[in-house]
């Protein structure tokens, strides 16, 4: 039988605007990254003045993702978070059942990753902070980044290079290991 029935798993790639999320996904994806669009219906659910459906604006939020085959039995999906803060409601959907998140950080613009770090901490999602060393240059030591972002010692701060498959894979390995530690202590 050639038609396998693989199990899908998911990792979220978060971070600020233009920090290299798409590059990160593209470097390891088996397919050219795809974009799925969702209408922003959830935003209007809490609003009383709905009017009829045809009068609603068809604002959409786009999510980029890639796919990595792990043997014949597993398929890993990597979803980039939509950048703008107003799309945070989509993050709830993205993190549901996810192994965890890689929060990409550009040391030149540290503050851009604050929302992602905050969100993952509050949601209890296992995550690693991955400093994207653009052009192979690391502008700040991971310890400095940890201190600046007030990352607790239990959360890994690592260095990656979104352009290189091996570096991306290592970042993902780090995340999965961390998720296993978190999972083990949570169920103990």
């Amino acid at each position, binding site marked *: 039988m050639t038609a396998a029935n693989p199990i899908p798993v998911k990792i979220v790639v978060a971070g600020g605007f233009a920090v290299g999320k798409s590059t990160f996904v593209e470097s390891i994806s088996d397919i050219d990254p795809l974009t799925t*669009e969702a209408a922003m219906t959830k935003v209007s659910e809490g609003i009383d003045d709905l009017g009829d459906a*045809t009068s609603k604006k068809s604002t959409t939020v786009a999510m980029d993702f890639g796919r990595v085959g792990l043997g014949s039995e597993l398929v890993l999906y990597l979803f980039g978070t939509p950048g703008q803060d107003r799309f945070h409601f989509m993050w709830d959907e993205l993190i549901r059942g996810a192994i965890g998140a890689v929060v990409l950080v550009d040391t030149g613009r540290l503050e851009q990753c604050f929302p992602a770090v905050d969100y993952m901490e509050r949601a209890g999602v296992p995550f690693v902070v991955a400093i994207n060393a653009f052009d192979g240059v690391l502008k700040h030591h991971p310890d400095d980044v940890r201190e600046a972002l007030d990352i607790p010692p239990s959360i890994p701060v690592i260095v990656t290079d979104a352009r290189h498959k091996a570096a991306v894979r290592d970042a993902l*390995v780090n995340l999965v290991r961390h998720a296993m530690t978190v999972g083990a202590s949570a169920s103990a």
Partner: protein
Amino acid sequence: MTDDSPEAFTSLRVRPYLLTGGRTRSAVDLPLEALVRTTPAGVSRSPQLGHERQLIVELCTEPQSVAEVSAILKIHLQVARVLIGDLVNEGLVATNTATPHQPTARPDLRLLERVLDGLQSL
């Protein structure tokens, strides 16, 4: 008020809910990464299906995630979910997911170990 422009009747993006009879939710729980696979019944019924349903059934002869169905066929995610949910209920596609219903639940350790092994063999 209404989008009666000519393009509203030709583009899926403008009036997606025409395809779903106005429904915005699927009766079946379909996470983004749930894999959709066409069943033998789906293969044989394919010629009789409506356009979008037929496209989904043809696409998913190789397992594709809900997100891929939406992205490749350029159907809004919510609409893709309703259409896939119907196909599931009719037995024309089957889905596979490891994602638990509880929002905070995470994949179990055994699955994580397999993912780790898979990543390390890349």
